[in-house]
């Protein structure tokens, strides 16, 4: 039969001899043992110290009454234990992440199901209630009989999340380990969805999640997050960890993030980054964010215009490039000056021996770093670009602006 946490709170407990022991005030799950089994019940006894009943000491559970299969003397005294998840304190009214619905929700009630195993009854947590039925139960329990509440709630729209899709949010890293809370399921989400979820949480919870994600995911999430929050988060991270995360990000995103940090944190984080990455970021920081230089990324693929398609493909395979972002390759002439661009789709259809100079896109477009951001937007619009190369005064390419940088700029200026 289905039971609800609210109905169980305050239930009377009788021992094997039928003597009244106390009332249930809280119950726990031991995630290290089994992820969904109610492992301990806290019984309050007025002025006497509270007792704990283990799951194998429960004979039967019906609404309002719990019977034990042992006598009162067999029960242990209650001692607080950090590795137990308290359903009332840690779950009810708290925010959790619904990993399937990809959003943050608040728990109104917890649904349980009873399971009979050799001589005792176990409760298993099946789902959390985040909708009206749970709310109504919380409000009326104790004033209205459970039977009436059950009749009432059947007419209400259901809104529940299965326990396996629930991701708890615990800011304290030690407690997180004890409760076996991992964020593996979160790492499978799209970084943009995860960023939305994180924005809905409190400052401490955000910090906890970012700190426990792997660097690559953390970097991807930070790149998607509201920039007012990214600085707050990076500021509080350990500089070494922050540097590791920033390394995983595109240099322009990392530079944008660092630019808003206070001077001291800024220096600490940059000191922890490897020389090459730190230099790139420092260089990008010199540009005004509203110019082409401020929008560009220094990570871009470039090859000689004399090379053949096969040579280029071979070279691309050897590079550690972010393939999701790669759609244009910059060409250089023999003096390392900008000679044009080739789109990846043209490369795809070219003959093996075809030279890059034959494939390049017309007209030859480029801008200098101090060109205004509006000019960049106009060029993208006019020529339907996906990438635009930025060159210095002596025509050497220094970076590339991708279409997503342009979209971000447009969204921000709205």
């Amino acid at each position: 039969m289905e039971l609800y946490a609210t109905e169980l709170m305050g239930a009377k407990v009788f021992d094997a001899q039928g003597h009244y022991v106390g009332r249930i005030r809280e119950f726990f799950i031991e995630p290290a043992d089994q992820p969904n089994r109610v492992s301990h019940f806290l019984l309050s006894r007025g002025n006497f110290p509270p007792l704990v009943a283990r799951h194998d000491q429960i004979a039967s559970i019906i609404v309002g009454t719990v019977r034990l299969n042992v006598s009162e003397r067999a029960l242990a005294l209650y001692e607080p234990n950090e590795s137990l998840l308290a359903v009332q304190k840690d779950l009810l009214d708290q925010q959790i992440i619904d990993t399937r619905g990809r959003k943050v929700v608040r728990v109104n009630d917890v649904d349980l199901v009873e399971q009979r195993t050799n001589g005792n009854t176990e409760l298993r947590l099946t789902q959390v209630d985040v909708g009206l039925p749970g709310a109504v139960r919380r409000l009326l329990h104790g004033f209205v009989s459970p039977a009436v509440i059950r009749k009432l709630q059947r007419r209400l729209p259901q809104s529940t999340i299965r326990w396996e899709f629930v991701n708890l949010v615990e800011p304290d890293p030690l407690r997180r380990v004890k409760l076996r809370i991992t964020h593996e399921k979160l790492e499978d989400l799209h970084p943009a969805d995860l960023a939305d979820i994180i924005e809905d949480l409190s400052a401490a919870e955000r910090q906890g999640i970012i700190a426990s994600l792997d660097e690559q995911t953390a970097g991807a999430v930070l790149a998607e997050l509201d920039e007012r929050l990214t600085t707050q988060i990076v500021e509080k991270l350990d500089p070494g960890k922050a540097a590791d995360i920033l390394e995983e990000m595109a240099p322009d995103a990392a530079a944008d993030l660092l630019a808003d940090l206070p001077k001291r944190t800024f220096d600490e984080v940059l000191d922890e980054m490897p020389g090459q990455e730190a230099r790139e970021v420092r260089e990008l920081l010199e540009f005004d964010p509203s110019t082409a230089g401020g929008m560009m990324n220094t990570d871009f693929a470039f090859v000689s215009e004399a090379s053949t398609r096969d040579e280029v493909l071979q070279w691309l395979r050897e590079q550690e490039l972010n393939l999701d972002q790669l759609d244009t390759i910059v060409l250089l002439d023999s003096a390392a000056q900008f000679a044009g661009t080739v789109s990846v789709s043209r490369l795809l259809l070219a003959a093996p021996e075809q030279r890059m100079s034959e494939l390049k896109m017309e007209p030859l477009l480029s801008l200098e770093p101090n060109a205004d951001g509006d000019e960049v937007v106009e060029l993208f619009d006019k020529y339907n670009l996906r990438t635009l190369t930025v060159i210095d005064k002596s025509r050497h390419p220094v970076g590339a602006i991708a279409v997503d940088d342009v979209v971000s700029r447009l969204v921000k200026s709205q």
Partner: protein
Amino acid sequence: MDWRAIANRFATVRSGGTDLQKRIRGLRRRLTLLLAVVGPGLITSNVDNDAGGISTYTQAGAHYGYALLWSLIPMTIALYVTEEMCARMGVITGKGLSDLIREEFGFRPTFFVMITGFFVDLANVVAEFAGVAAAMEIFHVSKYIAVPIAAVVVWVLVLKGTYRQVEVIFFFACGFYVTYIASAFMAKPDWLLAARATVIPSVQFNSNYLLMLTGLIGTTIAPWQFFYLQAGFVEKKVGPRQYPQARADVLVGSISCMVIVFFIIVCTAATLYAHGFTNITEAKDAAKALIPLAGPWAGYLFAFGLLNASVFAASILPLSTAHVICEGLGFEAGIDHKFEDAKIFYGLYTVLIAVGAGVVLLPNAPLWKILIFSQVGNGIWLPVVVIFILLLVNRRDLMGDYVNTVTFNIIAWVTAIFMIALTLFLTYAAIFMPSAPSP
């Protein structure tokens, strides 16, 4: 094609590197930083001067002249102290007040706070639309035209606008309060007398005077504003590092609110009180009486101020109420959601505006009773909310090093107890002394 060679050339490229440009950029950045924080404090405090508030200040000036001006300084302190705690909680925890109440005190207390809030705010919304009707009457516009238009404008504004656009509009609304300063100057008051009354307290011990004093405080510090203020800072993603700016925002807001109250009281004291119009009970009558006393412009500006304040509060109150209730009870909330995803939020929001405006349009609507109800509701609601705030702000597990200091706690508890005693007195008076001047 050596990367290093290219990188070296690249390093020589500098844009905007000159000193002057850097300094301008620094200045601009600091300004952006400030603007990113400022808003909630300024807006919340100014919304306090809503239709009900302006009526009360008008009466205070008409009945007692400058005699109540001294109360503005302690009121500024009380307003700042309570609002600052909410701002701090929002900035440090990143959570709204109803979120925190729910998490720390459970479902039922939250539900009680929310449901009381709904009805009290509904009564307040009625009062705001009544303010719109009264102000437009001065401009000879029927309330059957003015109120529906105001309701639709408010409804559409929030549904179609983004948080940022709405905030900019609210900023303008704050600016329009200067009409009261203009009205006050046209009334040619005795500035010296007003200044002296502001710094030297003069307490009269009769029940009408005390009731007026309580009314002043009751309308200025309303419980819903704490929720709105805290949510505002959370919405703007203000973090601990910008806490000083947030505090400055609250301080400037509290002071500017009281400055406006000062000018309203001075204006009515110099005209209505000085010419013996002491039985004025509504802002509308004050505006009418001002026309022969201080010229038509003084009256029109006064009425325009009332209109602005009423529309301003009528747009914020329903939004804030719907938001707070949904947040506390765990429903999707916020104007960024689609209608299908946040039906309860939009439903509450629409009901508040439709009922609020609808009641004003009813012939023989019991507006007087609704005003008293909103006053009593505020009185019951305020102690609960303030005590919740004080308990939460002292929780070290939530606030870390940002819990109240001992000195601040003393000031805060004294303020809270004083405010609670006064509002309970006002509640008592509103129920059992029906002949008392309307607060």
